[in-house]
C-alpha cells in the first residue's frame, strides 16, 4: 500500500533489458508458469503479464490458481472468477506503463468441474443427476489432480473463446509440479476405465441387477460399505461413464494446445535445494513431452558480492585468528571486542555459504537447460506490494 502523501518510487531502470522476457514471450498465445509451491510463482506470473502488456499492445489475462491476495491488495482490486482489468493509471504511476491491458482472474474449481460435466454429458438430465450426486460434491476437490485438471480446462476454454490475446497461467502448487500435464489423460483414463463398465453392471442396470454373492469383490464391497452406498457409487459411475467420449476428446484437445508453437512454458524456482530439484525435473519432463521451455526465472537470488571467496578468507581470519583483535585495536585505533570481531566474520560466512550454494545451482542450471535465465534478486527492503511487483515486472 502506498502511504498517503508519499510519492511512489519509479521502478528501477533495468536498462535495455527492461521487460525483456515480456517482449520475447509476449507474442505467444499462452504462457504457462510452473514450479513448486512457495517460490513466488503467482507474483512472477502477474509480473510477467504486466511485462508483456508493457511491451505489446495486447490484451493479456493472468489466470491465478491461488487467491492472488498480494496482487489484489497491491492493485486495489478484488480478483475472482470473472476477469477484472488492472487499473492502468495506477500501474503507470508505479512505473509499469502499459501498451496493452492486463486482466486478472482466479481459477474457480467448482465452476470448471460443473462446466466439464455439463459439456460432456449427453443430455441435460444426465448432467443434472451427476451434479446432484453427493459423491460428485466432493470429487472436485478430492480427485487426484482435480486442481490441475480444472486449471487446464479453464485455460482451454479461455483460449478457445479468444477474448484475450495472451493468457499467462499460474499452475497449481502440487506435490509434483507436473501433475497438470498428466491431468487431462488421467481423467479420461479414469472415466474410461473398463472397470467402470464392469462396476456399473451389464446394460446399465447397475449393481442391483448383479448378484452380490457372485464375486468376491462385490461381497467385500457390500460388507464394507453397505448396499445403499454401493448402489449410489454404481449410479455415479454409470453416469460418469457417459462422459467418456467428451472427456477423452477434451484431453486430446488440451494436449494439442499445450504442444502448439503458440504456447510457451516458464519454470519459476528459487535456488533452494528442494524447489531447484523440482525445477530441474520439470525441465526434463517438458523435454519428454516435447513442450518448449522458453525461460527459467530464478527468484530471490542473493547479491553476487556475497559469494566472494576472497572476502570469505578475510571473514575466516576474523573468526579463527584471535590475534587479529589486537591488530585491529593497534592499527585501526578501534575499541572492538573479540566477540564483535568473530560475529562479524560469522555473519559474512553465513551469507557466503548461501551465496556460494546459489552460484553452484546457477551453474547446474545452465547444464540442464539451454533456455535463457532471468534472475530476480532477493528484495528485503520495505517495498509496498505494488513497488515490489513493479520491480519484478521491470526485470522480466
Amino acid at each position, binding site marked *: 500500500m502506498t502511504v498517503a502523501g508519499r510519492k511512489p518510487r519509479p521502478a528501477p531502470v533495468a536498462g535495455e533489458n527492461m521487460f525483456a522476457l515480456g517482449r520475447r514471450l509476449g507474442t505467444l498465445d499462452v504462457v504457462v508458469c510452473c514450479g513448486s509451491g*512457495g517460490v513466488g510463482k503467482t507474483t512472477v506470473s502477474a509480473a510477467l503479464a504486466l511485462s508483456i502488456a508493457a511491451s505489446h499492445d495486447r490484451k493479456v489475462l493472468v489466470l491465478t490458481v491461488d487467491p492472488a491476495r498480494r496482487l489484489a491488495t497491491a492493485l486495489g482490486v478484488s480478483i475472482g472468477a470473472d476477469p477484472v482489468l488492472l487499473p492502468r493509471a495506477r500501474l503507470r504511476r508505479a512505473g509499469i506503463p502499459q501498451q496493452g491491458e492486463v486482466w486478472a482472474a482466479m481459477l474457480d474449481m467448482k465452476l470448471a468441474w460443473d462446466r466439464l460435466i455439463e459439456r460432456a454429458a449427453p443430455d441435460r438430465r444426465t448432467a443434472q443427476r451427476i451434479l446432484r450426486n453427493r459423491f460428485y460434491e466432493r470429487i472436485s476437490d478430492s480427485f487426484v489432480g482435480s486442481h490441475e485438471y480444472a486449471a487446464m480446462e479453464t485455460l482451454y476454454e479461455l483460449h478457445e473463446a479468444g477474448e484475450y490475446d495472451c493468457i499467462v497461467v499460474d499452475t497449481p*502448487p502440487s*506435490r509434483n509440479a507436473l501433475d497438470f500435464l498428466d491431468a487431462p489423460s488421467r481423467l479420461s483414463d479414469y472415466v474410461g476405465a473398463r472397470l467402470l463398465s464392469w462396476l456399473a453392471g451389464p446394460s446399465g442396470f447397475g449393481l442391483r441387477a448383479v448378484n452380490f454373492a457372485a464375486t468376491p469383490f462385490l461381497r467385500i464391497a457390500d460388507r464394507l460399505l453397505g448396499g445403499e452406498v454401493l448402489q449410489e457409487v454404481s449410479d455415479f459411475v454409470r453416469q460418469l461413464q457417459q462422459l467418456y467420449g467428451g472427456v477423452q476428446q477434451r484431453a486430446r484437445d488440451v494436449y494439442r494446445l499445450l504442444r502448439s508453437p503458440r504456447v510457451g512454458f516458464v519454470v519459476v524456482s528459487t535456488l533452494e535445494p528442494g524447489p531447484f530439484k523440482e525445477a530441474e525435473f520439470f525441465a526434463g519432463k517438458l523435454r519428454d513431452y516435447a513442450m518448449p521451455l522458453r525461460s527459467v526465472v530464478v527468484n530471490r537470488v542473493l547479491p553476487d*558480492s556475497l559469494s566472494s571467496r576472497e572476502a570469505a578468507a578475510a571473514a575466516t581470519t576474523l573468526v579463527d585468528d584471535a590475534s587479529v583483535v589486537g591488530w585491529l585495536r593497534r592499527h*585501526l585505533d578501534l575499541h572492538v571486542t573479540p566477540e564483535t570481531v568473530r560475529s562479524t566474520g560469522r555473519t559474512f560466512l553465513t*551469507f557466503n555459504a548461501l551465496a556460494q550454494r546459489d552460484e553452484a545451482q546457477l551453474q547446474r542450471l545452465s547444464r540442464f537447460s539451454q533456455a535463457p535465465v532471468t534472475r530476480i534478486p532477493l528484495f528485503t527492503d520495505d517495498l509496498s506490494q505494488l513497488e515490489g511487483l513493479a520491480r519484478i515486472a521491470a526485470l522480466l
Partner: protein
Amino acid sequence: MPLPAGTIEALLQRRVVFVVGKGGTGRTTVAAAIALLAGRAGKRVLAVDVEATGHLAAALGQRFAEFRPRVLQPNVSGIELRAEESFQEYLGLYFKVPRLARLTPLSRVFDFIATGVPGPRDMLVVGKIAYEERRRDQGRPAWDLIVVDSAASGHSVSHLGAAKAMLTLVRGGVIRNQVQWIDDLVRDPQRSTCVVTALPEEMPVVEAVELRQRLRSEVGVDVGAAVLNRVMLMNTTPAQRSLVTALLDEQHAEAVRSRLGGNPQPFDDALELCRRLHERSEQHERQLRHAFREPVLQVPLMTTKPGLATTRAVAAALSGRAA
C-alpha cells in the same frame, strides 16, 4: 527469545503428531527432528512419510523407506505410505482375502476407488496411521509415538478430515465402526495433535494461520504448536557496523587486506542483509504469535543441505538446546 517451556515434551506425550504446512516450509525436516527427539527420549517412534517421496528417510540419514517399517535411527522406524499396499493390507487383515484373489479385477477396482471416489484414498492414509497406533506387539503398543510428515496444506486437511467426511457418506457396513474409531483418534486432543510449519515471509505466515483455522474448524483436530523455520536470529549490532566501516576505510585498505588475507568489501552487504532479514523475521514472528495461541518454536536459518546433520541441528533448536 524465551522458548515455551516443555513444548516439545508436551508434543511427545501424544500418540500421533501430524506435521502439516505448505510445501517448502520445512515440514519434512521438522517431522524428522521430532522423531529424533522422541527416539532419544527412549520412545519407540514410527515416522510416516505420507507422500512417499523418500525425503523423510533422507532427513533421517537413510537412502529409502518402504511400506514395511524399517529402522532409520535408534528407536526410530520409518514407513512410506502407499495407498495400494495399505488397501491390500486392509483387505488381508479384515476380510482374510488371500493375496491371489486380490490381483484382478480387484486391483483395478481399487484404482478406481482409490483415485476417484472421494474419501477412500484419504481414508487409507489416515486409516493406516490409526492402525499403526492401535497395533500391539507382545502385549504392548507397537509404537509410543507416530510422527507424520503430512501432505501439503490442502491435502492434509482432507486426510485428517477423511474419517469425519466418511461418516456422513457411509451409514452402515463394517467400515462404519472402523471409520468411527479413526475419527475418534484423530480428534482426541489427548492422543493426536498437529504441528504447523511456516516461514518468516508474508504468504507462508498467512497460509499457516489459515491452515490452523481449517484444521480446528473443519476437522476439529488439536493444534499443538507452530514451527517457524529459517528464522534470521542473528542481528547486526552498532559495534559490527563500526568495525566494518573501519575495515573499509580507504586509508587502511591495503593493510587490512593483507592482514585479513582478503578484501572485506562485501561485509557491508552481508550486515545490511542480515539486519533486514532479522527485522523481517521478527515482524512475521509477531504476526504468527498474534494468530496462534499455541507456542511458536523458532528454527534458525541453516546453510546446510537437508540431511541427518541438518535434522539434528533442527532438533536441537526445537528442544531449546544449542546445536
